């Protein structure tokens, strides 16, 4: 089994936030914590691009390197996880992460910073699989159910792919070869079809 990865296709993302909602619902994420979010570049300008961002489960994860209590570990599938029982909420991982993945719940009168929370690739944590403790701390463990992350499986346009990096790379490669890269990707021609390029219907043939 190769490494588990996410792949976000900016050409397909329609900024519906379905992935964000799926993640929130699946793991009952508290208010103020966003394990996944959609970032839009040139918002409102024709040709704007949106991309769904969460923990990218880096092969050489900087969060793991800077953690002073070494609470991070990587599973055999390449998923970067952490032990919340060890986390001291220092926030070093937040500064190290290039994607802004680590989240810190704030609670109480003084906005006390809690233990770090991040995308688990729906793989739970170091608690017993499918236990109440695992669900409470890390959310649902879909990987142990033979399923992929809820965000990727929920994505309506399949802009967000998640899973075995070799397979999702192949899917994306084939997709790019089919759709091209120029003016045919978006615009009037794509939205309303290209009648001039359709083959002429044969007389008597079913439409």
């Amino acid at each position, binding site marked *: 089994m190769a490494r588990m990865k996410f792949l976000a296709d900016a050409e397909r993302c329609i900024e519906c936030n379905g992935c964000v909602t799926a993640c929130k619902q699946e793991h009952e994420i508290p208010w103020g914590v966003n394990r996944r979010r959609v970032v839009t570049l040139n918002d409102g300008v024709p040709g704007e691009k949106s991309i769904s961002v969460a923990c990218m489960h880096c092969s050489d994860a900087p969060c793991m390197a800077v953690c002073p209590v*070494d609470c*991070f570990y990587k599973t055999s599938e390449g998923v970067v996880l952490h032990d919340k029982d060890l986390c001291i909420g220092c926030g070093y991982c937040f500064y190290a992460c290039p994607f802004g993945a680590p989240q810190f719940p704030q609670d109480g009168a003084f906005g006390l910073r809690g233990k770090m929370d991040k995308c688990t690739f729906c793989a739970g944590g*170091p608690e017993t699989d499918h236990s109440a403790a695992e669900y409470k701390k890390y959310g649902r463990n879909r990987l142990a*159910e033979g399923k992929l992350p809820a965000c990727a499986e929920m994505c309506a346009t399949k802009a967000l792919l998640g899973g075995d990096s070799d397979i999702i790379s192949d899917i994306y490669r084939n997709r790019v070869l089919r759709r091209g890269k120029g003016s045919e990707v978006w615009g009037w021609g794509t939205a309303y079809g290209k009648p001039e390029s359709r083959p002429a219907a044969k007389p008597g043939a079913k439409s």
Partner: protein
Amino acid sequence: MKRPLLLMVAGALALVAAGCGESPSVTVYKQGKYQGKPDAEPWGNDAFKGDKLAWERAIKARNERQDETSRGTPTAAN
């Protein structure tokens, strides 16, 4: 007369050579060792009962279902 000159030349050479001894200024992080609880493999639970191949088949099927171009053409395998 010659000795101070020699000393000066030697000092200048040492200064020039010191410029070659530049050390890298990019921080190299060293990975720590995980200190927490061990995690079980995703196939080591009641659902798969330790059958890694069954888990891999399940994940592969889910992976391939993300490709809409192959989803519409069922084969003998799926």
